[in-house]
């Protein structure tokens, strides 16, 4: 049932990362559903994997994102998705705990309703019917429409399980017009009404389905099934004519064709019309003998001949049937031996590869095996599929562990390289860092800052000059010294005047340029501060790295060792479980084939008994002839 749960999610996750319990949801249906609002890209990434049916990547990626707290804005939806994915892997306990936690912590009604629904589903699957009913009645009104259908069907199943047929019929009666599950609800309603003691009402629903047009294979199969159910119910009520009417509607090539042909023959025989029974039974007896209906037809056909008085043909057919049963029995022995040798599972895995562990993986191709026809019906059984998927999951997990073990080896080497590079570079970086006298630079910067403060406070424009002005100031000083030595000589008056003018012009120029120079000087000081800050930050980071890196390396190395230990501890467990599960699956198939053999033996005994009776009859007739002569 876990599979049910996941496939629905394909439809429903677009609405809110949810899963449900049915399988038809196709890509198109899902695409038509309302889009989900992704509030964290990593949650969207898990959905991206999920939509591609990469469920393992999806759930592990989601858990990684939860570890890094990257899906906080979609927290409840992410938990719901995780629970559903775990459920899809058959991890009922953990999934149940997640849903219960979501309910307990007061998630939004839409999340809570879906969690109750899944809890009800899990409990139903595990056989806790009362608890499942308790959960289902707590579901509010926020389920999406198609989940609402599933809720109805589940509720009806729960009522049917405790033989409340009338209650189930009441629930289903309200669903018959649903566009999604309507036809199935009508079928179930028909069955429920028949079981509740209203065969006429139930048959009416099934008859309506049995005559309805069916545009696709799924609905055609449902129609066939309704007609077969009606046909056999009529046979049970000893209404062979009605049974023939219903069974005539079943397609000759559908999944239920063999049952219908067999039933049609019995209806004809019960109507005292064995000649008419010959037609379906002859057709059926030519079909693949791995089907129980075909085997039964092999002895039903000579019975019809005997009924018609064609004892010779009847005897021939019985003998043919006995030969067939014996040869089939031998073939079954071959199949059982091949299964026990492990060929079946190895061949199935080889011919049906899949990228990931998952419940939606299906067997598409049978391996070349002796008399593979026997296997198809066994392999189609739910128990086998579940058990085989478990086996396949274990194989996947075994490879997964091996891959991680290889990767961990690479991580270990990478870490060793980093350690080596770190040890190599550290002295160089240290030497370089020590060559940079950060403290001296900081002192020079502080001295400069003090000088700027003084210049600014005193508006000392003469302190801020460029190279040309510096040269001119030097020349002015030297001229001033010469003029000063000349004293009050009147002949030097012109020179003094020119010096005064030149010095005044310089003072004017410096005063003019002072604001811009001061701004530039402040800007340069700020830039120096930034660079000094960056250098200090790097210096601190280097010091921090010197302290932390060895610890980080140690921590990583410790984690690698720990994870490797966990892998090594799990590998033999997975291998042992894999072997155990292989034997379990093989036993399952072999037991089923043994049951087929026993059925064949019963048929063969009955055929031999019938042959003996035919001989007795012939002997009695001969004796009677003799006596008459």
């Amino acid at each position, binding site marked *: *049932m876990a*599979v*049910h749960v996941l496939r*629905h999610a394909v439809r429903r*996750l677009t609405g809110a990362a949810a899963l449900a319990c*049915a*399988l038809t949801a196709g890509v198109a249906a899902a695409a038509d559903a309302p*889009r989900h609002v*992704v509030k964290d*890209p*990593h949650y*969207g990434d898990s*959905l*991206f994997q*999920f*939509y*591609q049916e990469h469920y*393992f990547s999806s759930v*592990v990626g989601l*858990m990684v994102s939860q*570890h890094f707290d990257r899906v906080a804005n979609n927290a409840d939806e992410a938990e719901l998705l995780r629970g559903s994915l775990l459920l899809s*892997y*058959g*991890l009922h*306990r953990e999934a149940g705990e997640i849903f219960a936690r979501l309910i307990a912590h007061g998630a939004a009604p839409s999340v809570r309703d879906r969690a109750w629904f899944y809890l009800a589903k899990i409990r139903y699957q595990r056989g806790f*019917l009362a608890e499942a009913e308790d959960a289902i009645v707590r579901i509010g009104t926020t389920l999406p429409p198609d989940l609402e259908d599933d809720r109805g*069907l589940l509720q*009806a*199943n729960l009522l049917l399980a405790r033989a409340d047929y009338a209650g*189930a019929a009441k629930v289903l009666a309200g669903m018959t017009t649903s566009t999604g599950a309507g*036809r*199935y609800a009508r*079928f*179930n309603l028909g069955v429920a009404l028949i079981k509740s003691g209203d065969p006429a009402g139930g048959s009416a629903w099934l008859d309506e389905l049995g005559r309805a047009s069916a545009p696709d294979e799924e609905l055609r199969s449902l129609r066939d*099934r309704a007609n077969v159910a009606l046909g056999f119910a009529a*046979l*049970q009520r000893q209404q062979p004519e009605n049974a023939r009417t219903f069974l005539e509607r079943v397609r000759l090539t559908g999944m239920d064709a063999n*049952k219908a042909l067999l039933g049609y023959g019995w209806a004809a*025989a*019960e109507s005292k019309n064995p000649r008419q029974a010959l037609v379906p039974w002859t057709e059926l007896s030519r079909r693949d003998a791995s089907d129980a209906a075909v085997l039964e037809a092999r002895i*039903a056909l000579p*019975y019809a001949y005997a009924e018609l008085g064609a004892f010779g043909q009847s005897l021939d057919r019985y003998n043919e049937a006995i030969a067939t049963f014996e040869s089939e029995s031998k073939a079954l022995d071959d199949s059982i031996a091949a299964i026990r040798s492990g060929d079946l599972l190895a061949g199935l895995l080889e011919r049906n590869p899949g990228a990931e562990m998952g419940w939606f993986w299906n067997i598409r191709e049978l391996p070349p095996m002796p008399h593979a026809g026997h296997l198809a019906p066994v392999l189609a*059984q*739910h*128990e086998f599929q*579940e*058990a085989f998927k478990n086996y396949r999951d*274990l194989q996947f*997990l075994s490879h*997964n562990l091996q891959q*991680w073990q290889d990767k*961990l080896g690479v*991580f270990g080497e*990478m870490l060793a390289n980093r350690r080596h590079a770190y040890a190599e570079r550290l002295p160089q970086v240290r030497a370089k860092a020590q060559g940079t006298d950060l403290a001296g630079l900081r002192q020079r910067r502080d001295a400069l800052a003090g000088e700027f403060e003084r210049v600014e406070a005193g508006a000392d424009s003469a302190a801020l000059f460029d190279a040309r002005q510096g040269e001119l100031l030097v020349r002015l000083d030297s001229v001033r010294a010469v003029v000063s030595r000349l004293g009050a000589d009147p002949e030097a008056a012109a020179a003094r005047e020119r010096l005064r003018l030149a010095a005044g012009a310089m003072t004017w120029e410096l005063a003019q340029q002072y604001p811009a120079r001061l701004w530039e000087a402040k800007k340069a000081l700020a830039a120096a501060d930034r660079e000094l800050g960056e250098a200090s930050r790097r210096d601190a980071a280097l010091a921090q790295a010197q302290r932390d890196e060895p610890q980080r390396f140690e921590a990583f190395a410790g*984690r*690698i060792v720990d*994870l490797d230990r966990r892998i090594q501890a*799990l590998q033999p467990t997975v291998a042992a*479980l894999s072997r155990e599960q292989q034997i379990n699956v093989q036993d399952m198939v072999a037991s089923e084939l043994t049951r087929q053999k026993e059925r064949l033996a019963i048929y063969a005994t009955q055929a031999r008994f019938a042959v003996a009776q035919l001989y007795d*009859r012939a002997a009695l007739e001969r004796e009677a002839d003799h006596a008459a002569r």
Partner: protein
Amino acid sequence: MKTRCFHWMRLAGLVLLAAMHAARAADASPAGTSTGVSATVAAASPAVAAQAPATAADASAASLDSRIQDVKTELIRLNRDLMVLEEELLFPASTQLAVFVSMDVGKLFALDSVQIKLDDKVVANYLYTPLEVEALHRGGVQRLYLGNLRAGEHSLVAFFTGKGPHDRDYKRGTTLKIDKGTDPKYIELQIKDSMDKLQPEFEVKVWQ
């Protein structure tokens, strides 16, 4: 004799009927069945579906199933821890850059491929399968690139190739200046439909 034989045969028919019901119960399993059929069958034989394991063999199988469940749980947790280690080792938070691709509606643009250039260097070239495009249409967000980037300014250029309106070949680029700090950087490239212009639009969202 005829009568006796007939009754035996009739009984066989009824045995088959019972077998048919049992088969339906088996069909109630989800594997490969559709919603309706499984629901149908489950309802047709609910008691079978609801039965708890009763025999010793069933109990043993249940125990094996339970142990397999435990191992699967442990392995999923182990995979999480391994992936956490891998990410911390290869893409530390201080240098991590993740580029995501998403699609809103996407009716005006059929995505074929995306190329990402980081500081003029091609770091990702991705060709989409129909299944991946479908996953994007349904709201999935693909983490297209995960890498490391130093702190500071960088340029990211993304080219989208596909079919635009009227099934015409369409290639568009979008550019973004990234200021990478010491926290991980998540960038989402969004493909949207502009119904006003009847053209696809390519937007960039910086998550952090």
